[in-house]
């Protein structure tokens, strides 16, 4: 692994990596020189020959530098040898013909070699053609062969004799019957294809490693085999995925699409099972750990994306709240927090405003879209506040415990589509209020301890909605029962030997 670090810090690679940047200068300059020459000859525009000479000079200089940097870059290895060879000679050709074109075009040489002028046109023509061709080879080296025309639409596709469009390489197709799937071909290879082979295949094999074929994967690259069958923990390809993303040896490199936890689990499992080439899932031992990852394959996409389990409201994209409004709310004594960096939903709490009243609810109007967690517990609000609360469409958690609200208030929450948590501990809410909200689509839990809700209503609603947690707490009797739980502990003797 150290070899990577050494290469990275050496001058050759440092300069080499400027090749893709420098190379655009000769491409642009030469095309401009050629275009100006065409325009000049047509007489459509007045271009002095000096301008063309000047541009040609810089074309030749920058082409020379691009060649040098390109050579240094090629030393870092990992490119298809034939394609690289073509690219190099065409690139050198560009530089040579650019110099030739400049020499014959410039005044001094014209005197020494009067016939030279005749080779100017062929020279600039060859330089331009070579530029286009070398540029295309360069693109193929970087992005992989066929990148340019991969998405050619019909009918041009058939006319050009290209094969039909392949499946989107960044997407993994769902597998209908996971048990019958061939582990390598249907599960492992698609993961490698979407995340690894862009840099580790025939046209570009960084670190001399190719991951597009099982035999080559087993053979490995300059750091040894990519995996050790049966030992995922000691396999380089797994170890690298598990390194912190900032680590220089982490794969895929920082900024590239990363493997999901499930995908790493699947690859590890395949290696642990001996990395078979043609076994089906049903022929291998399915461990507990890999079960969820396998199950997620039926959904396709980026198998088991990590956000799959977020409740609906957190994936909502709402517009950003006005900074001035938030500032006003904070000045009024409310706590306003943005829920997370990738969305604009807000959490608002009146914990420092025990005197918060129904009237002050008006303050929240401008952020009605954004409020998702609202904490008004222990404040002076009454049922009147619910007229406003019911207009917060994305509300998902509501704390109104230790207030004087009643059934009339809480019943107004009914239309809220995302409300999953209601806390009415120590309020005047009763059975009617509980029953009014119990059927709400998103409601997961409602806390009714020390409210006017009766035990029979709690059990009735509990039976009717088995997935809803209706939490009533302890009273004297149940607390006394709990305290008894420890009575037996002292009696037992410790004779386990």
């Amino acid at each position, binding site marked *: 692994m150290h070899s990577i670090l050494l290469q990275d810090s050496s001058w050759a690679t440092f300069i080499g990596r400027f090749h893709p940047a420098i190379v655009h200068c000769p491409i642009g300059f030469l095309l401009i020189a050629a275009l100006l020459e065409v325009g000049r000859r047509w007489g459509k525009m007045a271009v002095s020959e000096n301008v063309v000479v000047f541009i040609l000079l810089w074309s030749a200089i920058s082409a020379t530098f691009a060649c040098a940097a390109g050579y240094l870059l090629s030393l870092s290895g990992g490119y298809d040898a034939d394609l690289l060879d073509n690219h190099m000679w065409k690139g050198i050709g560009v530089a040579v013909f650019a110099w030739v074109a400049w020499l014959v075009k410039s005044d001094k040489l014209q005197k020494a070699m009067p016939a030279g002028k005749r080779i100017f046109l062929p020279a600039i023509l060859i330089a331009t053609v070579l530029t286009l061709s070398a540029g295309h080879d360069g693109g193929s080296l970087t992005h992989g062969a066929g990148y340019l025309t991969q998405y050619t639409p019909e009918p041009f596709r058939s006319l050009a004799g290209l094969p039909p469009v392949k499946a989107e390489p960044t997407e993994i197709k769902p597998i209908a019957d996971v048990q019958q799937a061939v582990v390598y071909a249907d599960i492992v290879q698609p993961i490698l294809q979407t995340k690894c082979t862009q840099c580790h295949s025939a046209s570009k094999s960084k670190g001399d490693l190719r991951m597009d074929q099982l035999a080559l994967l087993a053979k490995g690259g300059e750091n040894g085999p990519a995996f050790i069958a049966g030992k995922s923990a000691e396999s380089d390809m797994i170890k690298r995925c*598990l390194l*912190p*993303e*900032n680590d220089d040896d982490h794969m895929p490199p920082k900024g590239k699409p990363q493997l999901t*936890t499930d995908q790493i689990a699947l690859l590890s499992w395949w290696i642990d099972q001996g990395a078979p080439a043609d076994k089906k899932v049903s022929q291998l031992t399915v461990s507990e750990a890999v079960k969820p990852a396998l199950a997620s394959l039926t959904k396709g996409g980026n198998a088991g994306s*990590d956000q799959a389990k*977020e409740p609906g409201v*957190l994936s909502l994209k709402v517009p950003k709240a006005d900074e001035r409004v938030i500032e006003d709310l904070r000045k009024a004594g409310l*706590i306003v*927090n*943005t*829920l*997370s*960096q*990738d*969305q604009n*939903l807000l959490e608002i*709490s009146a*914990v*420092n405003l025990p005197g918060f009243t129904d009237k002050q609810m008006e303050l929240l109007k401008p952020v009605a879209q954004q409020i998702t967690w609202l904490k008004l517990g222990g404040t002076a609000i009454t049922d009147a506040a619910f007229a406003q609360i019911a207009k917060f469409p994305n509300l998902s958690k509501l*704390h109104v*415990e230790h207030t004087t609200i009643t059934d009339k208030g809480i019943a107004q929450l009914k239309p809220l589509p995302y409300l999953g*948590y209601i*806390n009415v*501990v120590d309020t005047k809410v009763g059975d009617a209020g509980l029953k009014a909200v119990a059927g709400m689509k998103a409601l997961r*839990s409602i*806390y009714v*301890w020390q409210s006017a809700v009766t035990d029979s209503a709690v059990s009735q609603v509990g039976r009717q909605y088995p997935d809803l947690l209706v*939490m*009533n*707490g*302890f*009273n*004297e009797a149940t*607390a*006394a029962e*709990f*305290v008894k*739980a*420890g009575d*037996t*502990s*002292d009696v*037992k003797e*410790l004779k*386990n*030997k």
Partner: protein
Amino acid sequence: MENLRKELQHTALLHQTRRHFLQSVGFGLGALGLGTMLDSCGPSAAADHAGGEIAKSRIPQFAPKAKRVIYIHMAGAPSQLELFDYKPELVKYHGKDCPAEFLEGKKFAFIQGVPKMLGPQGHFAQYGQSGAWMSDYVPYLQTVADEITFLKAMHTDQFNHAPAQLLMHTGSPRLGRPSLGAWSVYGLGSENQNLPGFIVLASGGQQPDAGKSVFGSGFLPSVYQGVQCRTGGDPVLYVSDPNGMNRDMRKQTIEAINEINKQTYEDVKDPEILTRISQYEMAFRMQMSVPEVMDVSKEPQFILDMYGVKPGKGTFAMNCLLARKLVENDVRFVQLFDWGWDGHGTSKDHNVEGGLRQKCRESDQPVAALIKDLKMRGLLEETLVIWGAEFGRTPMQENRNGLVMPFMGRDHHLDAFTMWMAGGGVKQGFSHGETDELGYYGTKGRTHVHDLQATILHLMGFDHEKFTYPFQGRNFRLTDTEGKVVKEVIA
């Protein structure tokens, strides 16, 4: 008292002299240049966050599942083999010599030579729908089995109490790093302006071995450090007014002191002065709020009974009840320490039989009551309860100095111990990780201290690799360069 106030005002005036003017003109220019050069050294970056800024939260990477934390640390380290990690095989090996493979290349705090294996001392059974293994040491915890996620293959790097406690709470076995609670308040801010965001309560007769550094703020501004409250008598010493001092007088006094401090800050720009100013203001507000929140006399009797609280006694049970009251009042992080779990077998109190049973008798009921109490108030969903210690205990019986101990005891053990979490976005009724048949080494789901810390931060909404603080020219994080979120335990 009037004299005191006058004296303070006088001092304030004395503070501003012509010399000050000349000084600040001279220093000012130099400081301007120096300040930009030293920018990366810490204090100036820190200044942004000190003072009133403590209430401000940094926007987390993910929506937090755990908004508050109650971290129960059993200092000294209880034996996982008596409480949660059921090893029937160990019964057969009881009294036999420890296999050589367990001893090769290993270091222990006290074990020497070849120790004997020690069978489990508790009676185990499975509890709850989840079938969690627990012993008769913890009969109350059995009743909340389905709220808990166990981490059964925890491991650490340190075999002495103080460094192991530091590693557990600050991510480093050496002094100087901020604790988990300090990071939490730094990240999510402090909500209740009348209470500190990070409160520490200790019981068991002694402070944690690593001292106040386990709840310190390290290189974070010191506003983020844990504030330790006493559980008997005045919760915070010197916060109540002495006789003859009324609240108005106190207010004027603090205003005068803060005015002097502000001027000093203008002179020297030490951000710790801002901390001092905000702490004076906080202390003034705490005079009202702390006695109220720490007063359990208004709690109904059956709640006191559930926890097993005897009013006026600063016990662990009392601390559990206070922890609930504090999170109910939106305190971000409550840290409980209970000392006396170091069961070497050296004395009647420190062993894994009667001594450990006694510690469990004092703590099992309040911990279970805390979970139930949080649950019925709707607080458990957003409050992460963490229970654990700095390490575990060996499957071998301790043989300190080659002698047979007077009681059944076990030595410190790094390679396998159990912790558990409840609420705050972890799975209900789940167990992660397994140890080998003798409970010596984790075989599945091994979780390092840094992995646990990464997971806790993740539950609070922070990506532990991105949640950093610049100090001395580099970005520091709680998990240093390690840690991997244990996704399996997240609900």
